[in-house]
């Protein structure tokens, strides 16, 4: 029988369309993030089956259902350790992690720091809307001081965290901020993040049109300034990145704050994965090694 060699057709956005349409509110910032992720994957031409999209719980964590890749919709706050496990077992997979600010910086805050520290080669995309949406509008770790929410009807008295500064301080090797309203810019950031070898973090302003009346598309649009438009900005300079990350107000920088490529990612530093993925290893261990383990006990 003749073998038919088919030239694989280039992947298009349609190939990454999920089985169901997003159930986000009309106008939600997350639509823009989904579109940008799909576009980035098309531009990078990564086959669907080689991608695992992992999320926690929340509006934005419904993401894996809306994109055609292998997906894991896990527990609230736990996407990063699950994704780390996936990557460690099969480092040939492209691992994307999606979620919100409550999921990532609230309940999952501990994992955020430690996944950064481990420099796991995955891309963490936070759709940051500065509010808890799916639970109908409570204060989140990034809600601004004074913001009125259902859980702080008289105004938030706790300071928000700065995810960019935090990621930099924890030692992230790729730190960026995007805006759902800046599609092309976000797509480009995502491509760089996915190609980065190590932990890449993108905090994306993804306005909640239902519960956050403060940080809307209209509020962000005049404020966001692309770091890429500033020719003097050097994203390899950590202290400069820290300084930029603290800017908030009339001018809010978006773009790539920082990237370093000199540190190995976790699976690159791990000797056990040097000869292939864990999942491709034989089930039984080497008999000589096994015998040595027994001999040690004799």
């Amino acid at each position, binding site marked *: 029988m003749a073998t038919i060699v088919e030239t694989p057709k280039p992947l298009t956005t349609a190939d990454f369309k999920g*089985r*169901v349409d997003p*159930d986000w509110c009309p106008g939600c910032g997350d639509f823009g993030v989904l579109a940008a992720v799909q576009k980035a994957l098309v531009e990078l031409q990564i*086959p*669907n*089956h*080689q991608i*695992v999209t*992992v999320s926690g*719980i929340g509006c934005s964590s*419904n993401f*894996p*259902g809306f994109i*055609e*890749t*292998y*997906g*894991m*919709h*896990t*527990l609230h706050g*736990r996407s*990063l*350790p*699950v*994704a*780390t*496990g*996936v*990557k*460690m*077992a*099969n480092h*040939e*997979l492209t691992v994307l992690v999606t979620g919100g600010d409550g999921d990532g910086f609230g309940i999952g805050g*501990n*994992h955020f*720091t*430690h996944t950064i520290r481990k420099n796991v080669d995955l891309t963490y995309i936070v759709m940051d809307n500065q509010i808890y949406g799916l639970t109908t509008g409570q204060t989140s770790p990034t809600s601004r001081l004074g913001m009125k929410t259902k859980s702080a009807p008289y105004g938030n008295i706790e300071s928000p965290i700065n995810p960019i500064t935090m990621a930099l301080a924890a030692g992230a090797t790729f730190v960026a901020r995007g805006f759902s309203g800046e599609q092309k810019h976000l797509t480009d950031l995502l491509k760089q993040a996915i190609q980065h070898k190590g932990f890449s973090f993108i905090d994306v302003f993804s306005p909640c049109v239902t519960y956050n009346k403060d940080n809307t598309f209209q509020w962000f649009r005049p404020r966001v300034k692309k770091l890429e438009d500033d020719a003097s900005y050097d994203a390899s300079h950590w202290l400069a990145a820290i300084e930029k990350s603290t800017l908030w107000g009339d001018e809010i920088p978006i773009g790539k704050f920082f990237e370093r490529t000199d540190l190995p990612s976790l699976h690159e530093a*791990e*000797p*056990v*994965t040097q000869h292939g993925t*864990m*999942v491709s*290893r034989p*089930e*039984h*261990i*080497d*008999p000589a*090694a*096994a*015998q*040595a*383990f*027994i001999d040690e*006990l*004799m």
Partner: protein
Amino acid sequence: MSHTFTIGIGGAAGQGVATPGDIFAKIFSRRGLHLNAYNAYQSIIRGGHTFLMIRTGPEPVTNMGDSLDLLIPLNQDTMDRHLGLLRAGGACIYNADTIKPGQAAQGVQLCPLPVSTLADITRNKVAQNTLAMGAALSMMGIGFNALESVIVEQFGRKAASVAEENIAVARAGYDYATKNFKPFAYSLPIVDTKYAVLSGNTALAMGGAAAGVKFYCAYPMSPSTGVLHWFAANGRKAGIMVRQVEDEIGVVNMTIGAAQAGVRAMCATSGGGFALMSEALGLSAMAEIPIVVIDCQRAGPSTGVPTKTEQGDLWQMLGAAFGDYPRVIAAPLDIGDCFTLIPEIFNIVDKFQVPGLVLCDLLLSEGRLSVDPKILDFAPPIDRGEMITSPNGHAEGGYKRYLITESGVSPRAIPGVPGYTHVVSSDEHDEDGVLISDMYTNATKRRAMMEKRMRKEAGIAAAVPPPRLQGPKDADVTLIGWGSTQGVIEEARAQLAQQGITANQLQIRWIVPLHGEAILDQLRNAKRTIIVENNYSGQFARYLRSETSFVADGHIRKYDGEPFMPHHIVEAVREQLAGDTQLSVPAHEIMV
């Protein structure tokens, strides 16, 4: 059990109790003798009181026993606490310079060593330990060569001079004892077999390696940390990825991630860590991702007594995570079983795509036992169940991860296989993985998916053997235990037999599924049933009652942090047979 010989070595943490313990263990196992060791200690790095018991003999030694033949107190405190444990014919070897003997029982030989005249104590800080070891071996009738070769191994790695110096000190103790002390009446035989000596934690880890675990991760927590230590030291040699994670929530979720990517993945913790893992067990069950989680129980609640044993986590495990889901729970019966159980439980969890929980305890985790190296089988059968790892078979797009089947098991494709993309979810989902939790709630589908998952329980029950009564069919008393009490109950039965009381034993290894009908069947003709367990409330008794309506006649419970000794059970059985009580709580006489 035939003749055994028990040594107790005690001192403050940091005084060097472990080294003589290791040396004795090696000497005994190389003589072809069985041994069982248990270290009673505290959560302290320096100071406190550590007491190691090593019991040896030509036949399997299933527990620490009731008394001592030899006591080596490294400080006055140990002398004061434990001299009373020596039985007639026993001996106490101690440093005459620093320790005053107490009142020993009739027939106990006190053996003072003039340590400062026998060794240069300014040079060798542990001279008293080494002298005592030498003296002990002389009195046991074991030639000096056995000790010499083990000392070379133990200290040779440091420097030849260290070994030489210790050999000289040991020799001085040996010769002094030969001249001045009476040898033990029972001399330990030499048997032509060789045993491996290992802790339960090492056995659990090696069992994992044998089962094909490729990913292990943990957060340090006593008494489970030894499992992590074995994997960390040997993972690279065995081709196993080992990670220390920020907390137990991360641990179990990372385990689930690795398992979803297609490898066998395992983690171990103790009760507190297991509590943190609880939610994710539901994820494992709902997303149908098989993992194995080991809980090495310690005395709770809360931080509890971190260095003490208990069987107090049963109900935590039975109720871990909310909602109904199929799970497997097994409790290893001894240290050898810690090894054997892991490949067995992995085959079940892989086949049925459920979480598997191993209920171990500190007694096994940190105890040491001699086992026939044959049971350490590194090539056991491995059945990964219905896994799709290559694109053969299904057509593109038609794959349903949660296909409704008669068995409840749906073929599992792992990420990376073309044509099988799907989403696994903690939310309720349809056959194809699409969520039916939020926008598309659907009572009919929800019911179908619940029933699909729960149908696995029937298959799991069929895959697990029911427990069998051990000992005479017709007995005065039937002792029911679970997990680590197998050995001590066995010896208590032998002691009862000597006193004219026949006892048989039903020991539970598979806790879920329980096989209630088979248990009732076995207990139908029992004259008197007594449940023995290391907890306050009778957790297993309550579980057995809830599953079978069976109510035992009596209970023996211990929750002081220390394991049962055979005589605790014997005396409790006698008082219950005499009609004095239905609940015995033996007092632990070893003060640690």
